[in-house]
């Protein structure tokens, strides 16, 4: 998986662009204020009219209380390609400070946790989740994942649909999930912005929002958009209608970006300039063209992926990841060459025409071709056991002799989704300087019998299977049968 190196630079560059407004990111540009104030146009636009200056919906996430901890004696999968037996992981001030073998020095004043017989992995990252936007209970009053009113709803943001009380967040955490990308659904060609969340209990969405994570744009290939709009006698009703819809939108976005660039250039020079009217739909699309928003593209079929890659080239943007990419194995060399990740289930197949050719060795074959593999859930049940889903995918590869190790396969649910979500510099692997997002498993996490015993987020114990004080429950479940206890 070192081949990821070819694209890692691009991704981390994109990651820089993060800010609450995310249209142009935080890149410092010379400000017009430096110019002599000979022209009155230099004054800032009224509040809200300049996307770059938008206050957005900033994260208020703060880690839970933690104490310096050293986990000693576990088998450690670092997600950097290593499996360390009898390992040591030290976490201080929410960050990993040391990972190594038994000889690793443990600083004074650090609490030691005996983890003999346990396994430790980075926190699991689900890069395709609808928790919060399609929460439990799945009633129409809470069906907030698809703004299925227009094939292009790039203007909507999944975070505005997230219900933090979704009991699914608690289930996912008990399965070791520490970070989630919440996406809009796939009814539309452009579904809207995704949001990346820390999987901590919170009364507000902002309290979960992953600080510094870039936004994603959900796009959808294939059957869903053309069925949803075709059935309303609207475009798109065909695959070719889909592609027209993408191209038309990118033309509008490029034009919009040009108008803002012109405005800013003129403003910078102190010339008279009239700002274009802010358009939330085009602002998001322009953010993609500027490389600040990552394209998360629902696309099952290999041939459709090839078309989407050409669309991206026509307009000069990059596709970060294909989701539900059950046919990636058919175009694996192309995906390796283009540096595009494939997010897939292990073996789901046949639930619709475009998933008919799904095979269980998909992930392993893409891995073998040197492309980036992610195992995702798109499902509030599967998200609780992404470790097992990765195990099934790994096993399918080993059935045909690929020799996929646990040290490699763990990346599919940790380091690789972190890369595809633009947060690989912050989490996804056990390396000094990264967040203390850690799962302590009862046994080999690739076993059906393994359970996440303790889940740490930024070094703070957030779930403990053996301590009721660390088993948070949603407001919704109080007073209900079972009281939110699910195991």
């Amino acid at each position: 998986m070192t081949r990821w190196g070819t694209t890692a630079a691009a991704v981390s560059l994109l990651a820089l662009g993060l800010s609450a407004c995310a249209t142009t990111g935080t890149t410092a540009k010379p400000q017009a204020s430096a110019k002599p104030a000979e022209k009155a146009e230099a004054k800032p636009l009224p509040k809200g009219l300049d996307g770059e200056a938008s206050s957005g919906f900033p994260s208020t996430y703060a880690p839970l209380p933690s104490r310096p901890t050293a986990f000693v004696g576990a088998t450690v999968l670092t997600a950097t390609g290593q499996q360390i037996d009898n390992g040591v992981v030290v976490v201080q001030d929410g960050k990993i400070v040391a990972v190594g073998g038994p000889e690793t020095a443990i600083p004074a004043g650090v609490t030691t946790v005996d983890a003999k017989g346990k396994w430790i992995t980075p926190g699991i990252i689900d890069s395709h989740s609808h928790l919060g936007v399609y929460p439990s209970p799945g009633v129409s009053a809470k069906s907030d994942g698809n703004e299925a009113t227009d094939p292009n709803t790039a203007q909507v943001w999944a975070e505005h649909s997230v219900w933090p009380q979704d009991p699914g967040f608690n289930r996912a955490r008990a399965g070791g999930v520490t970070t989630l990308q919440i996406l809009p659904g796939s009814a539309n060609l452009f579904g809207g912005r995704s949001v990346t969340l820390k999987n901590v209990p919170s009364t507000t969405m902002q309290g979960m929002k992953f600080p510094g994570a870039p936004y994603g744009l959900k796009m959808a290939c294939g059957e869903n958009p053309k069925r949803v709009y075709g059935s309303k006698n609207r475009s798109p009703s065909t695959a070719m209608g889909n592609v027209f819809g993408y191209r038309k939108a990118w033309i509008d976005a490029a034009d919009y970006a040009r108008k803002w660039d012109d405005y800013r250039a003129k403003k910078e020079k102190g010339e008279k300039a009239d700002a274009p009217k802010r358009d939330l739909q085009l602002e998001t699309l322009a953010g993609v063209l500027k490389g600040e928003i990552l394209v998360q593209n629902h696309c099952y079929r290999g041939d459709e992926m090839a078309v989407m890659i050409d669309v991206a080239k026509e307009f000069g943007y990059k596709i970060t990841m294909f989701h539900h990419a059950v046919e990636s194995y058919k175009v694996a060399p192309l995906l390796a060459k283009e540096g595009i990740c494939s997010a897939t289930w292990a073996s789901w197949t046949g639930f619709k025409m475009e998933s008919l050719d799904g095979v269980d060795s998909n992930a392993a074959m893409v891995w073998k071709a040197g492309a980036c593999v992610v195992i995702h859930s798109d499902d509030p049940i599967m998200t609780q056991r992404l470790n097992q889903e990765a195990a099934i995918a790994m096993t399918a590869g080993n059935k045909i002799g690929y020799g996929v190790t646990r040290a490699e396969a763990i990346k599919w649910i940790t380091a690789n989704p972190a890369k595809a979500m633009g947060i690989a510099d912050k989490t996804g692997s056990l390396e000094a300087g990264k967040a203390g997002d850690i799962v302590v498993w009862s046994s080999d996490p690739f076993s059906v019998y393994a359970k996440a015993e303790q889940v740490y987020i930024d070094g703070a114990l957030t779930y403990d299977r053996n301590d009721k004080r660390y088993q948070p429950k949603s407001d919704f479940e109080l007073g209900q049968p079972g009281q939110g206890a699910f195991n």
Partner: protein
Amino acid sequence: MIRSILLAGAALTAVIAAPAAAQTFAIVNARIEPVSSAAIPSGTILVQNGKIAAVGANVAVPAGVTAIDAKGGVVTPGLVAPSSNISASEIGGVRETRDDGTGSSLSAGFDIAYSVNPSSPMIGLARDGGVTSSAVTPVLSGVGGGSHEHADDGVVEEMTAGKDGGGDPPLFGGQAAFVRLKAGEADIVSKSKTAVTLSLGEAGARAAGGSRGASIVLVKSALQDARAFARNRAAFEQGATRDYGLSRLDLEALVPVVQGKTPLLIRAHRASDIRLALKLAAEEKIRIVLEGAEEGWLVAGEIAKAGVPVIVDTQADLPDSFETLGSRLDNAARLNAAGVTVAINGARDFNNLRQERLNAGLAVANGLPYPAALAAITLTPARIWGMADQIGSLDVGKTADLVLWTGDPLETTTWADKVFIGGVEQPADSRQSQLRDRYAAGDNGLPPAYR
């Protein structure tokens, strides 16, 4: 190139020769899980003429009989899916390939045995996962009522047959069947009319006109009608009876139910709906099987006392509807501990039967004893569907439906190495494995279509 052509030729031969005669062979050096008795850590199983001839630690392999060395692998009975739509449904989102829903013409009279397609490519996929037979159970069109069905990105499709009919679904889901997934057979239905399905709770309410209060009233009325119909068919033929709520065909299907010969397979989820099902069974003196039962653990003692078997999806731990608020991962363990007979389902869906054995493993992880978990995917569903005299355990005289696994059959890292149905080794050439092999073969200078 030449090699791949030779392989293709071999595969073709295998397909042509598929309806092979039952073989005589032995599997040696295996951990054997007979299910009906304790595991044999290292033993031999002898199969003769399609039947199990001997099982034990010290079974001699007769001269001239092929011995397959399991190399420490595990032999179990073929897995039995307790309730699925395999062979009656092909592609989830393609309406024309779905014959697992009642439709709008019939209610209890619908018979899924006529929906079965022995050539469904999904059967090979199921076999690859060690599943050798399944109960095929209809659902209410457009309502579902089985366990967890997949919808990508929240774009829900209700594409079961009959959805086009409009209006509410009929009261009963129709008659179930039992299929054995043997390759090359023209008829894979071992038994038809094995149950009549019924949904209570939210799906049942919709079928009863929109509210739970109507559900049991209408069901009881239908059962009374079926009794009256059975007592006096002549009067019915002469038009000398009062009007019945169901058609003659539907009443006919309910006759074995009211006679206690065929169970009602009742999908119920909320504790109160499970209690209603138990009460219905007691009052009407009918046999029932429960499917779903996410809140079963809350009424486990009552289910055990009634002697009603339960089919559960052990992954179901979400309060994903107002009738599953108490869902939990140890439902199967708690039911079993209370003395309930528990069978474990994977997904209902034809394409995800792989999940059944993993769901059994998940149940073990959450407290179900291993032997009960293994039985829950073999002998228990075979018993529920009246097939245990033939399959479900490795007992001498039973049909040789068995699987040789590379390791613990409930484990993620294990796969089915060899699958036998009726003593015949099944081809491992599902559509999925053919796709895999085509693209795994690598570039030979021609497009994959030539591989």
